[in-house]
């Protein structure tokens, strides 16, 4: 009873400021401010539980995989393609690591390379259907996603532990009380930022995504750019699978799918900040941590775990709505 009583008064001011909140999200650092405000609120409401180095470390470390998937997806979405197969590709790569290393005992580094290559192949297959056979990306990757889920179960339908110890160590050790994967994902974000912001290829991706005909008439090889974007998306998703294997120390066939929606939420929420109205790398990174802060905080306050789905789904809807508005204004 007490829990319900304390929750009700909090909910009311939040909904009253809802409109302002949406407006603030549209501005450049609005999301970061809201994030900070949220973190502060949870620190006060859950004293000694939210702002602990353990909890902070968990927050930063656990989301590294999502950051990497979001980076992959960002390439596809910037180029104007919907890649619904990122979660399934992650799952495939994760399960490959479990089967080949955990069960069959193959050399882990060979397995890592194979898993990422498998991802790249998925990307090429997506590109074949989307670019050459002219299937809308939404349909092509939806089909691919289901197909890959089947393949994944075919490879292994059980949870596998006992992965290479060095490999697992690289995923579980901490530096400054934050798990190492956080640093890996920062490097990958940095590389994505470099490609999207500082190379002609990045420029071409944006042009192909926002005006394919303009890009074609400007002499950009549109088909190649779209293919590379889809391959990057799938390969990075596979890399995220490897990272997940290393930080869990185990693999399972059903984990991949859970990453699809959060990745979309992060990419589109990210387009409301840093460079509002434009899909961008640091916006997506901020968005990933914004989302997990909200979820972790709410769960510490006693929310059930289903809050996660409500939060991710709701934010995806709100983020796309806000970024469409931001685009309309400029």
């Amino acid at each position, binding site marked *: 009873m007490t829990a319900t009583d304390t929750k009700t008064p909090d909910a009311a001011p939040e909904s009253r400021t809802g409109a302002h909140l949406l407006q603030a999200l549209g501005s450049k650092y609005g999301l970061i401010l809201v994030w900070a405000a949220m973190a502060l609120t949870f620190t006060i409401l859950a004293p000694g539980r939210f702002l602990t180095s353990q909890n902070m470390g968990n927050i930063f470390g656990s989301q590294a995989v999502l950051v990497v998937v979001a980076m992959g997806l960002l390439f596809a979405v910037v180029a104007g393609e919907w890649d619904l197969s990122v979660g399934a590709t992650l799952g495939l790569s994760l399960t490959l690591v479990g089967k080949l290393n955990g069960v069959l005992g193959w050399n882990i580094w060979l397995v890592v390379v194979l898993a990422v290559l498998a991802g790249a192949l998925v990307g090429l297959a997506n590109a074949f259907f989307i670019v050459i056979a002219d299937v809308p990306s939404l349909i092509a990757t939806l089909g691919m996603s289901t197909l890959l889920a089947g393949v994944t179960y075919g490879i292994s339908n059980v949870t596998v532990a006992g992965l290479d110890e060095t490999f697992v160590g690289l995923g579980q050790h901490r530096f400054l009380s934050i798990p190492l994967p956080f640093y890996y994902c920062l490097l990958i974000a940095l590389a994505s930022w470099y490609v999207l912001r500082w190379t002609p290829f990045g420029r071409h991706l944006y042009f192909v995504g926002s*005006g394919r005909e*303009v890009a074609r*008439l400007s*002499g950009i090889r549109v088909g190649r750019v779209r293919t590379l974007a889809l391959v990057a998306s799938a390969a990075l998703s596979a890399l995220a699978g490897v990272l997940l294997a290393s930080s869990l120390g185990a693999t399972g066939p059903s984990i991949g799918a859970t990453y699809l929606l959060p990745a979309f939420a992060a990419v589109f929420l990210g387009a409301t900040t840093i460079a509002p109205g434009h899909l961008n790398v640091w916006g997506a990174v901020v968005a990933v941590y914004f989302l997990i802060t909200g979820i972790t905080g709410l769960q510490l306050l006693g929310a059930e775990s289903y809050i996660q789905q409500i939060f991710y789904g709701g934010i995806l809807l709100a983020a796309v709505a806000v970024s469409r508005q931001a685009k309309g204004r400029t």
Partner: protein
Amino acid sequence: MSTLVELQHLTMTFNASKALDDVSLEIQHGEVHGLLGHNGSGKSTLIRVLAGVYTPDRGRLAVNGRDVPLPIQPDSTSEHGLAFVHQGLGLAGGLSVLDNLAVANYERSSVGRIDWRRQRARAVEQLRRFGVPIALERLVSELEPVEQAIVAIARAMTAVERADGGRLLVLDEPTVYLPRPQVETLFGAVRELVSAGDSVLFVSHRIQEVLRYTDRVSVLRNGRLVATEQTSSLDERRVVRLIVGRDLDDYKHAVSNERERPVATVSGLTGKHLRDVSFEVGAGEILGVTGLAGSGFGEIPYLLYGALRGGQGALEMIGDSDLANRTLSVEELTPLAAQAQKIVLIPADRAQRAIIPEQSVQTNVSLPAVRSFFRHGLLNQRQERSYVRRLVDSFDIRLPSLDAPMSQLSGGNQQKAVLAKWLSQVPRLVLMDEPTQGVDVAGRLDIWNRLRTVAETGAGVIIASESAEELAELCDRVLVFRDGEISRELTGTSVDKHVIADATLAEDARVGGSSTDAVV
């Protein structure tokens, strides 16, 4: 005549600049009122205020003598009798005429299903007054442009039929995509409305059309209303002076009769409409190609750039001391290969094919050059910026900042930015479709001068245009097309707007029943 719409002291500010500055305007019952002005003069802002898109800082609006509070709610404009047909018409091309007409308000039966019999009867009624027979089953995408425009007008007028008192139809640049002979047909429909007591606000860049078809004209300049006058008291020169605020130095060029060496030879060019056409364009020459819609001339710029699939023929680029001759197969040509030969294309459909509206001016303009700023593994964005800055200055592009999205620029400035994007590539052959579509008078002269300058550096220029006036001002030579073939070649003193118009229409003058004058 009494007043239908009265706007008083309308003022609207964007980022400290006044888009509308104390504008007062009256539209009478039963008149066609022309609204003229540069891009950026405030025309679009005025219309968007009427449509409820913008909230003005100050001002009053009264319709049929009743005050209408501003801003108008966009969905209540029809209650006040305000109907809009925008340039893009807003029709669903893949649906039938009947579907498009029905979409505004369905005739419901008592149980709520759509009563298609009544719907059909009403649609027939809606279209009949315009005197243009259009079958209700046809897909809108298959209609002639003027038929589409009439469907759009009929639909807009249906939306306001329940408003009491007079109604105002705002036609925003409706003729941009119309072949000239169809303009007369469109204005037949407009006259029909006016004779029934409704009024029309006709927004256009085309001075001749406004002079020909309106009763009164208002001119906006820099957000101010500079004049409202009886059309009969105006002539073209005076209108230009009102729009620009000064006499334009007439753009004149010496038509050069001797061609220098050719820069490109086209042979056997065949497309959707074109049939086995051959011609050449000289270094320093501006060659116009024109004709009626469907005569095939409009395909030429796109075929020679590899932008249109399914073409055949050969394009020989003639080299000079530095460059060898090179023959390109039109069938296999791609934009990339064309660019490698220093061929550039400036398409007519800016928003779809030339610019990315939401991207910044800088990224739009620098696109063809962007690779040259990639050094030591990084895009040197400072260098890129100063490159674009130089082009913006030299092409006299007016913009809020280099980071402003392209959509914030006026049509003329967008077109200049597209010119800057491509002419900076030092082309040998410039292909351009309708160079000044949606561009105001002053911007037009700038663009013409630019094209003349690039020709003087030795490039060949091919201009596809339906505007005899533009071709006469700009071109050294004009090829007139009919049924996919060259029907006339005009040179020297024959490059004249009346001769061009006559040659274009000659046997087809009966189409749309228009006289030569209507075509300029």
